[in-house]
């Protein structure tokens, strides 16, 4: 057992998989020589050399296109898109090509690739470098969508993503890179599509993802002091979605909240709510409430960004008011 930061876990996870399988490559802007602008890939160039760890031009379509072409012909590439906002510059390749090709070819083409990207706000980077866009990916059939909340999950889920025969969008959260956590020794391989109950409770279920998980946990702590017992679920992946864990929890608590960093409209929480509203309607004892960033672009100033993204306070207050 060692304590690692979330960013070090990224490098450790990639290294674990590159050691295991020589078909695994890493490409992206500044990933090699510089070790990544978030310092999430240092040491990989030194260990695996300039062919397997390669810096690219600023050409996002070429980066993910290269990953796609390579994946269909025998490599298992990991491509980095530096900030998840930049996925928009290569969305055609991701959403129209990578996601659809297995289906369109009726299974002739497999695309075992991972697109890693730094997602989310909290770093005062403004509207074009702070988005939570995991719901963009969730909307596209053919993409798996993973978003870990802690270092151990980073390694285990990254390994599972690299080994998965389908394309995986792997969302690392900027605000978590510096956070630390215990990581078991030895090879770590997790399972996609498994949510985790990170705190048990009886009065309500809070479903959270990535950087919202520690916030939901902190809110649960405060709520517990005030006599409200909430269960917190870390979804970990949106596709596949572990609906059993969510529905099972609602069966117990009878109330559901989502805690989403994305702007409100069609966030992943909307999908979770719609599943609950259909499948466990009779378990519910009251309205389902989504706690999200308002439907606005993210502002840059710290004073503003802090009120935009769901805070521990806002979670606590909302849950208290709704359950009151």
């Amino acid at each position, binding site marked *: 057992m060692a304590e690692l930061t979330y960013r070090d876990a990224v490098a450790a996870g990639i290294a674990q998989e590159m050691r295991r399988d020589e078909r695994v490559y890493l490409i992206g802007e500044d990933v090699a020589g510089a070790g990544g602008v978030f310092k999430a890939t240092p040491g990989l160039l030194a260990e695996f050399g300039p062919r397997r760890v390669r810096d690219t*031009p600023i050409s996002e379509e070429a980066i993910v296109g290269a990953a796609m*072409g390579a994946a269909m012909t025998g490599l298992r590439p990991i491509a980095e898109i530096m900030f998840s906002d930049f996925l928009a510059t290569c969305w055609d390749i991701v959403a129209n*090509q990578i996601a659809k090709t*297995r*289906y*369109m070819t009726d299974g002739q083409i497999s695309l075992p690739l991972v697109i890693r990207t730094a997602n989310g706000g909290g770093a005062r980077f403004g509207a074009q470098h702070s988005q939570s866009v995991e719901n963009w990916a969730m909307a596209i059939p053919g993409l798996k969508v993973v978003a870990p909340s802690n270092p151990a999950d980073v390694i285990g889920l990254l390994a599972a993503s690299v080994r998965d025969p389908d394309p995986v969008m792997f969302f690392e959260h900027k605000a978590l890179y510096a956070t630390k956590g215990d990581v078991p020794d030895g090879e770590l391989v997790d399972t996609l599509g498994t949510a985790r109950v990170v705190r048990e409770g009886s009065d309500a279920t809070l479903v959270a993802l990535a950087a919202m998980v520690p916030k939901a946990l902190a809110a649960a702590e405060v709520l517990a002091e005030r006599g409200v017992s909430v269960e917190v679920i870390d979804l970990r992946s949106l596709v596949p*979605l572990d*609906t059993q864990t969510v529905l099972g929890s609602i069966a117990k608590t009878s109330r559901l909240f989502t805690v989403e960093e994305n702007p409100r409209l069609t966030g992943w929480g909307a999908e979770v709510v719609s599943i609950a509203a259909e499948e466990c309607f009779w378990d519910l004892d009251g309205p389902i409430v989504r706690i999200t960033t308002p439907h606005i672009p993210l502002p840059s100033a710290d004073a503003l960004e802090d009120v935009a993204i769901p805070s521990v306070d806002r979670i606590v207050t909302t849950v208290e008011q709704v359950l009151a």
Partner: protein
Amino acid sequence: MTSTSTPAVEIDQETRLDLYRRMVELRLFEKRAYDLFMEGLVKGTSHLSLGQEAVAAGFGAAMRVDDYTFCTYRGHAHTLSRGTPMARVMGELLGRSNGVTGGKGGSMHLTSVENYAMGSYAIVGAHLPIAAGAAWSAQERGSGQVAVCFFGDGATNIGAFHEALNMAAVWKLPVVFVCENNLYMEYTAIESVTAVANPAADRAAAYGLESIIVDGNDADAVYAIALETLDRARQGAGPSLVEAKTYRHGGHSRADPGKYRPDQEVEEWLDRDPVDTYRERLLAQGIAENALTEIDDDARTDVEAATQAAREAPAPGPEVLERNVWADGSATWRN
């Protein structure tokens, strides 16, 4: 290295007959596809290569069996020219279960991985970076394979073209980019929206590449430049960008009569029909007419058989609808 109609290499008779056979097959196949479209059997859309057969034939004949082909929605010819069975392509156009993708892809998404036809991509430009990726993989695996990527003149103005060419050049990837310049995008002339006269060749220098123009209606010339560029790629000398000047005999897609094109222009290009002119050349070179007629007849028989097979094949059943989204064969996104 600007190539002209006169090929630098000697092409043996067997190859010439092979080129002819390929073109005739493509010609007859596409004509039949048009008829079936008019009959209402090709449901969605369909983009034919009538008039452009020499490009697919020339490259098809020159490629190694395991070289990769990437093409567009106008991809029947390129897919067939890798050996994909006609019946399975025809079945796909008709949305039948015997189609190469069982009806999932349709006319614009023909794919036959066993023939190294790695897909037809229907969004302009997208497959250039993907082809570069396949070339990168071939390079890393040391397989000696080359990726050949066909696209239209219109694709030279989209961003993906630029990104793919630059990356391929910097990484010295074994990929040959082939622009089939048929003078038009859908209904708009390429010259009206492009800053240079030769949309591909005049951009080659921007990627440190040589400017290559080839007569895309001359199968020998295409074959020669294909050999040369494939060889360069295989030797590790990096990518090439080839601009093949050609013309489509019909409209852009479906039943488009192509009326936006001046009559005289159409006539001039019909006079330069790649199949007819090649037939004449072969005859002039002393090849016996009945050798050609035999090829014609065989092709006719093949197209007939393919049509029959496709017509008779059943439509895909609803049970395949949610098949093959994922590698486990399912479309399951939840537990």
